[in-house]
């Protein structure tokens, strides 16, 4: 009984295990070539690098599970970041970071609702809608709000980037700490996990990705569910935008847009089905870890950075391919 239960686990989370294994193997390999990899400083900096992609990925994950696709989230993120920064500098330069994040997040929710209106009420495919809204939001930002990089951000945003935890002394005497941004990312990952697992709306996201018609017939309010999804994506994007500019210590309206496909790649890498209904938060987080590991660490072992994209592509093909193959074999096709 026990054995079959753990076997079941293995089967259900096959993809997550594969990604975890790749992460472990990759880490050991990189570490054995360059021991700098294991230094606390490097690990902390890797974890910090997962934050922005991670927050975006959580939203992207929700949309993919519901059986749709959103590519406007980076545009929403940069819009919220830039407008909020400008607004705060203009009206209340002393605002705290929580307030700033809330403003950006709620702005994101509103923008997400625009997506939801088209996708849910007009029943348009998410890819088309967000292709449009993403381009529109970014165009609006650059045309009417500004193209100049904000070099002096509100103080609280700069301060946020300096908050660290779990301080450790490195060999060279430097004291390093883990960015609080990572804690925010993980906290939201847990929140999304709980919402998906223990709320009826959360299960509806999976149901929607599994069979849309059945979801309506059972009596779910699909419109409500989709507003929840795209609102959440907007909120997380706003948050990611502010965190990004805080980490960069400037507000650049040309940032972020262009990274959306990498984010979606990370989520898919983590085992989320591009056709909807399947995927776990844990998998999406692992996907982000793996992608960040590849992007930031291959260089440590002398692999040119151009190779990173190729490696990501190869891993996507191999990992999703192996799972697809196993599924096919188990169905006896």
């Amino acid at each position, binding site marked *: 009984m026990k054995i079959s239960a753990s076997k079941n686990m293995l089967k259900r989370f096959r993809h997550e295990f594969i990604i975890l294994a790749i992460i472990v193997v990759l880490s050991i390999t990189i570490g054995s070539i360059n021991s700098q990899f294991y230094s606390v400083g490097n690990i902390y900096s890797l974890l910090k690098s997962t934050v922005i992609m991670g927050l975006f990925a959580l939203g992207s994950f929700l949309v993919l599970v519901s059986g749709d696709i959103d590519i406007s989230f980076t545009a929403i993120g940069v819009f919220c970041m830039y407008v909020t920064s400008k607004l705060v500098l203009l009206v209340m330069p002393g605002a705290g970071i929580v307030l700033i994040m809330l403003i950006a997040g709620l702005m994101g929710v509103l923008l997400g609702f625009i997506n939801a209106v088209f996708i849910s009420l007009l029943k348009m495919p998410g890819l088309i809608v967000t292709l449009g809204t993403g381009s529109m939001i970014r165009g609006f930002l650059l045309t009417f709000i500004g193209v100049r990089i904000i070099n002096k951000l509100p103080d609280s945003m700069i301060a946020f980037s300096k908050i660290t935890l779990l301080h450790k002394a490195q060999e060279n005497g430097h004291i390093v700490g883990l960015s609080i941004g990572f804690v925010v990312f993980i906290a939201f990952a847990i929140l999304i996990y709980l919402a998906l697992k*223990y709320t*009826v*709306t959360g*299960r509806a996201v999976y149901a929607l990705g599994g069979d849309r018609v*059945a979801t309506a017939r059972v009596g779910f309010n699909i419109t409500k569910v989709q507003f929840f999804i795209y609102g959440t994506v907007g909120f997380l994007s706003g948050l990611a935008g502010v965190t990004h500019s805080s980490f960069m210590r400037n507000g650049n309206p040309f940032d972020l847009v262009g990274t959306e496909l990498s984010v979606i790649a990370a989520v898919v890498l983590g085992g989320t089905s591009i056709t*909807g*209904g399947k995927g776990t938060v844990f998998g999406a987080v692992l996907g982000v870890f793996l992608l960040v590991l590849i992007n930031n660490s291959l260089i440590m072992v002398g692999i040119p950075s151009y190779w990173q994209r190729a490696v990501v592509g190869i891993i996507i093909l191999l990992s999703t391919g192996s799972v697809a193959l196993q599924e096919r074999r188990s169905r006896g096709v």
Partner: protein
Amino acid sequence: MEEELIVVENIEKSFPGVRALSDVSISLKKAEIRCLAGENGSGKSTLIKVISGIYKPEKGLITIEGEQYKSLHPIEAIRHGVQVIYQDLSLFPNLTVAENLALNSYLGNNKKLLKWKDVKKIASSALSKINVEIDLNGIVGSLTVADKQLVAISRALLNNAKIVIMDEPTTALTQKEVDSLFKIILNLKEMGISTLFVSHKLREVIEISEEITILRNGRKVAEGSIDQFDEPKIVYHMTGREVGTERYKYVPRGDKLPVLTVQHYSSDTHFEDVNFDIHSGEIIGITGLLGSGRTELALSLFGIHQHDSGKVLVEGKEVSTNTINDAVNSGIAYVPEDRLSEGLFLQQSIARNTYVSILDRLQNKLGFVDFPKADITVETWIDNLSIATPSKENPVSSLSGGNQQRVVLARWLATDAKILILNGPTVGVDIGSKEDIHNKLRELARSGLAILIISDDIPEIVQNCNRIFVMHKGQIVERLEGSRTHENEIVAILKKLK
């Protein structure tokens, strides 16, 4: 007098350009099993949707549990215990059995948070109501159709069903699964639940129903206790015409070599040492339980699946069946089981669907498609197979099931096939068109084609095939002479197989 649970009177319902229901009445007593029969387009599904509150009729009265309604709202229908089990079952393939069962009641009770212990409890009590055991943690998408159906039925019962409407529940079930479904329907009857059973398969209808209502062109044409009906009578009311029941007679054509010879044909996983031949003019039927290897055999002969050993000869010459191209070039054509997902490009025109299989032969000297020639070919086949359409440029999706099936036939006949393999040729096709397809197949056989039919539909096999093979665990276990075999014999053989 027995209690009438629901009485639907004088329903009228029109859609733009069509009168779907005119003056239709139907009623169900408590614990009654009633069959609603009728061809596609007869108004069956419209009537179901009126009863379940999805459509509002223009006229008529619905009395349910003593309360009168001009039209029902879906919520009212559910509150009165009306549950529809749709043909597609409306389950979530990516969720577990437990969730599929429990989500409904969570929604019904307007709860926001899930307790997984309760989910399991709700689910297991639902399954125990109909005495079935299915792994609660299993993903629904990986269950068999029969198990999925049981999940759907259990889910309906969870909502205090008093009337269960089953829309074509047996379409994808094997004989044994149909039997256990019937046990469950009888079980529901004992619990006081009424069943409205919608089906094409008349033998089943007669076996399970107590009462029958027959619709044709939106009108009720017959109704009564099932004892007063037999198959030909039901068919007559459904189609408005007599449908022939005479069998196919094969007249040997005196050819020396069979068109198709299959020798020691084996695949490591699906079938083993299959031997048979088909002469010109023969119609051979293969039946067997699901998983007997018959579909895989057909797919291998057509080059979709691989075989591992054995020979295939066409007119005495050994041919390769390794790829679809090989098979097509040696004169083998295959009409798949699910014409919608495997066979047709639904949004494309009838013409394009027809000539897609012979594009390479329609090339002119420059390598472009010779459209005038293509048009002639298409028109010939539309004519030959009497496909009912105003224009060959209409999309295939605008055709009825029977006519869609003919388009698939036309496509393969256009390749000048010598051997036609059909997998479930009339699944989901109504009786009238079914007869037309059967007649067409006989005609084709008489004109010299060798035909292989794979089917679950025993009457179809017995009526149309001059030889019948029963396959089991990858082998042909029984070879019967069509003209001397009774349906019940084959049913008995199938029941014995395990």
